[in-house]
């Protein structure tokens, strides 16, 4: 379900697919898979991907593993700080349906209920091969214009916001630790 | 005729003991009488008391130098008499006594006679020192004054032994080899205390800073000027400049010590006392350079200094808090302090300029350096006081009596005028310097060519 795009956006999507910058923000146990994918054996950089320190410069947001309520608040806050054509990749089953923590009072069961996720990678922490499979798939989707999570977030922002508030109470929390 | 100038104040001094309060109001007329006599008398007048010829009897000499010095001294007394508020009950006789002895001091041509008048001045000064119950200061002044008086007496005796007579002209006429050294030392010590030289001026801060506005105004101005004249007279005319370099060194020491000590003071009066020590030291040092320019500079500076002190001391004693209320007194105070420091366009600048140029032409490079150091330190603490009195918030400040305010204003305007057209003070001091320096003229006029 790609939307109609001008020639410029086609070119831009083509470029975006070849130089995806990944936000260096590891939310769960999947983060341990990233170093091997960056270093010499798998080398993420040959796809044009590299870790970026700040959300302002990043394109992809990796949600690697279970997402507790408190981390979700930070994820939403960082997601909104990223510039516009941004893509979210969910690692492992915990992001799909809560995984082994489906019945825990502290972790959420379904990420795309709160922020749009473009691509899921199955496996209880996918190996670098699966990650590269996902990245190439994401590149194809971007080139085809199918990775339009950020547009969905913008269009039905109200729905997402209402879901977030229903589950989290309020996104920005003000307690003794945050002055 | 000039002996009347001593007689009249003495007479009224005794009269005033009888009529307790009124002498205070008679004082201006007496001083006016004195000035009248002075104006009538034309210079080089020599008057032998009791008809005895010069070398034997006492002779009063009124040449150019003593004419102007007496004039200045009497003018100061006149100004003082115009402010009766500060003269307390019993002190009018003392003021009259002081007037007689200072006139006598300046006019006399006879050494022993000058010793007598110095002792009378000192006595009057001791009582004055006691003015606002300052017993310890007065006592200290009494001890040191007495000793210096005795040394002065020794000096006169030695010169009598040497020259055979007590008359200054006669003494200066014939020289007496080795003895002059001893005489000079004795006179240095004798006059040193009154002239506030370095180690001998211990009494000055306690006496001047006793809180009474009368003592410093009189002692600091009139008496100091008379003593400066006397030092000049004795050391240059009588002793032909022996031991002037010792005097020079003592003078320099006094300047440095006076300024450094003044820097530390936290009370205004004491700081001003030290400043007067330093100025006196400076004048002595300038006199000891022994050339026409430096002598003129010395007396010109001494005149500026006494005018400034006449403004500073009364204001300092009366106004403690600040000049918020009466700006005029503040203006006078600032003008006086600026002239003391030597800022251009004020009188002090002219006199310091003269002293420095004379020092340079005499090839002496140390005096200007010391003078600059002194004026830097003086500028520092005087401006500190100026700023403190002018700009700090002051709630109460007792107002100054109107007549003091007018006199102070007149004097400060005088300082400004002198700053631009200095010839009023300059000619007077030039005449004083000339007459002190030509000893031969002095001898001829006194001895009348025996």
């Amino acid at each position, binding site marked *: 379900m790609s939307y109609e795009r001008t020639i410029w956006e086609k070119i831009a999507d083509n470029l975006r697919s070849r130089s995806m910058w990944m936000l260096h923000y590891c939310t769960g146990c999947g983060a341990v898979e990233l170093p091997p994918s960056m270093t010499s054996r798998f080398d993420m950089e040959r796809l044009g991907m590299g870790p970026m320190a700040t959300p302002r410069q990043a394109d992809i947001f990796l949600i690697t593993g279970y997402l507790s309520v408190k981390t979700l608040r930070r994820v939403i806050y960082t997601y909104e700080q990223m510039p516009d054509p941004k893509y979210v990749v969910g690692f492992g089953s915990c992001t799909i349906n809560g995984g082994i923590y489906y019945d825990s009072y502290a972790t959420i069961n379904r990420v795309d209920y709160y922020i749009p996720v473009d691509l899921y990678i199955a496996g209880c922490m996918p190996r670098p091969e699966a990650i590269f499979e996902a990245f190439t798939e994401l590149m194809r989707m971007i080139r085809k214009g199918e990775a339009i999570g950020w547009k969905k977030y913008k269009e039905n922002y109200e729905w997402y916001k209402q879901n977030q508030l229903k589950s989290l109470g309020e996104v920005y929390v003000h307690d003794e630790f*945050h*002055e | 005729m000039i002996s009347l100038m001593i007689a009249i104040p003495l007479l009224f001094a005794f009269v005033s003991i009888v009529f307790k309060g009124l002498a205070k109001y008679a004082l201006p007329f007496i001083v006016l009488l004195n000035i009248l006599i002075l104006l009538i008398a034309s210079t080089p007048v020599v008057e032998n008391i009791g008809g005895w010829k010069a070398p034997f009897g006492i002779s009063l000499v009124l040449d150019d130098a003593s004419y102007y010095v007496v004039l200045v001294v009497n003018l100061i007394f006149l100004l003082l008499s115009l402010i009766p508020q500060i003269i307390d009950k019993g002190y009018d006789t003392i003021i009259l006594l002081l007037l007689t002895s200072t006139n006598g001091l300046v006019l006399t041509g006879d050494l022993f006679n000058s010793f007598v008048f110095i002792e009378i001045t000192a006595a009057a000064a001791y009582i004055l020192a006691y003015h606002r119950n300052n017993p310890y200061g007065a006592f200290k002044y009494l*001890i040191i004054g007495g000793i210096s008086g005795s040394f002065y007496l020794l000096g006169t005796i030695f010169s009598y032994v040497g020259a055979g007579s007590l008359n200054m002209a006669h003494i200066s006429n014939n020289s007496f080899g080795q003895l002059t050294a001893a005489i000079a*030392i004795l006179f240095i010590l004798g006059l040193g205390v009154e002239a506030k030289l370095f180690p001998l001026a211990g009494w000055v801060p306690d006496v001047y800073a006793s809180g009474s506005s009368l003592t410093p105004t009189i002692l600091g101005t009139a008496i100091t000027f008379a003593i400066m004249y006397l030092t000049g007279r004795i050391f240059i005319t009588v002793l032909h400049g022996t031991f002037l370099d010792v005097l020079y060194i003592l003078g320099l020491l006094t300047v440095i*010590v006076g300024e450094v000590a003044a*820097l530390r003071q936290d009370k205004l009066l004491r700081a001003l006392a030290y400043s007067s020590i330093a100025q006196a030291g400076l004048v002595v040092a300038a006199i000891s350079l022994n050339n026409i320019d430096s002598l003129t500079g010395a007396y010109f500076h001494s005149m500026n200094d006494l005018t400034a002190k006449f403004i500073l001391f009364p204001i300092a004693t009366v106004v403690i808090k600040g000049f918020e209320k009466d700006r005029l007194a503040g203006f006078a105070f600032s003008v006086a302090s600026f002239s003391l420091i030597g800022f251009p366009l004020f009188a002090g600048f002219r006199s310091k300029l003269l002293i420095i140029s004379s020092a340079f032409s005499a090839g002496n490079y140390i005096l200007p350096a010391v003078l600059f150091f002194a004026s830097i330190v003086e500028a520092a603490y005087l401006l*500190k006081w100026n700023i403190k009195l002018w*700009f700090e918030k002051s709630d109460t400040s007792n107002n100054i009596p109107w007549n003091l305010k007018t006199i102070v204003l007149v004097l400060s305007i005088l300082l400004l005028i002198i700053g631009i057209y200095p010839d009023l003070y300059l000619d007077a001091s030039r005449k004083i310097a000339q007459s002190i320096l030509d000893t031969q003229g002095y001898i001829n006029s006194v001895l009348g060519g025996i």
Partner: protein
Amino acid sequence: MSQLLLILFIGSFLVYLLTRMNWIIGVLANIGLAIYSFYRLFTFKVGTSESIFSLIVNQNGTLVYSELSKFFGIISLIVAISVYFFLINWLEKQKNRAVFNFFLALITASTLGVFFSGDLLTLYIFWEIMLLFSVLLVQMGKEDSKKAALNYLTISLIGSYMYLYAVFMLWNRYGTLVIKDIVQKISVETSIFKWAVLILIAAAGIAKSGIFPLHTWLRTTQGSSPDAFSAILAGQLEKLGAYMLVLTVAVFPSLKMFPVLYGGIPVFNYVLIVLGMISILIGTLMAIKQNDMKMLIAYSTVSNSGYILIGLATMDKIGFAGGLFHAFNHAIASVMIFLSFAAVIYRTKTSKIDEMGGLIWKMPLTFITYLVGIISLAGIPPMSGFISKWMIFVVLVKKGMFLTAAAAFIGSVGSFLYVFRPLAGVFLGQLKSKHKDVKEVPIFMLIPMLVLVVITVFFGVIPGPVLNMITAVEKELNIQPLEHTMTVIKSSVGQWNTLTVFTMFAVGFIIAFILYMVFPKAKRIPLTNQYTAGEFLYNYDLYHYSTRFYAFFERLYEKHPSVEKLYEMFGKFFKDIGEFLNRWFYSASPSAYLLWFSIVLLAIFWVRW
């Protein structure tokens, strides 16, 4: 000229009376006076000399209107006019305004007097008047300004009395005090005399412009004096120091008077260059440490006076021109910076950098003035500051003085550091909550600032007019004039064209702007929407980096010997001696008096007998 000076002095009394009535009229009168004298400055014919009322018995002072006095007169009057305009709104917050205005008028009058004076003593008299009234003005500032004023007075007096000492040495030697005659005679004297005279005269310049040994007063005075006056102090009074240095280096022909030591520079000038070098290093390193913005710029004045001194002392056609042009640039730049600081303090009541932040969003025009000011002060190309620094670099490199060149480079790159500290700490970064309602300063304060911005930019692009004036001065002091066209500055080592640099900068800016417009428009987000590593922040006052901005660099020279403490130690030393004297000699018991009495007796006997 004496007629102009008379008008100025009488005018200042008039200003005093007017300000007592209504302070706005007083300020306007002051502006009128300054503009009138600025106009008259151009009408005078160069080279005329008049006599002024006689100050010494047989000698009346002379006033000479030379190219040099015209150049420095123009600088000081530009500074004066812009600060007086600034006063229209600023003065109402200052207590006892009448006296403030009166002293300002007097200072301007006496500065012009100094520039016009033809003989050394008239120069001294105007110098002292300016000194006295500037001390009384300095102490009208904050509470510790009284002590700072006294500090300033003592050091300046040391300088001026050393100058007076030299004046008398000359007067005693030649009988005349007119500079022109002395200059002919002096080159034949013995070298000790020449060294002594020139060092003493230079002392006044060093004290006033804050070169190394006598620079400690600048920090406290600038820090605590009233803000408008610190602009005058930096702009006008420092240039007096520069004028005195020109007097010692160029008017007294140092080239003819001293043997050449190295690279065509006489020995005496080399001593001055070493002093200049030290003051650059001290100024830069200390400025980086300061937290109070006015003290920071005070130290930058120390380092810039070092540049002026080095420029002048090289006596080379480019170096001398560089020194003079730097005096001009430094005056304009430091006035702009101090006026912007005064505007900031006028609104935020504090001058500490770490208590402010993000003021650009509330006071953009003040920010632009400050920005252009620091670009010129730090010597960055499009502005005029760079041209003078370039000249000084070229002359240092041409003469092969590498140590001085290294100090100059450290000074210029260091100036990027310390000028950036207030920029980042005060204007950029997060806006403090207590400054939420700060408004821009009223219009009358903005006009002078923006006028100065225009002047700096104009002379940055077309330095022709100022360079013409400078070459005229060089011709007058018979130094080989600098060859330059309206916008090209030639030197034996290389030349460059200010206009092409500016056009290329504009071209680059346009290219960047085109790129900026072509690509998608960015969304404007509020200042509090920051990357905070995922944390929720509510008190953004703390989220601003401005305290100890260069902490890591300051740690390198933390335990540095401080000259200021040395002078304080001297001060205390004198006070202790005073204490000792007071206790031993003056308030002791009579028996002590006798002791001293006998000691004097013995001393005289021992010495004389």
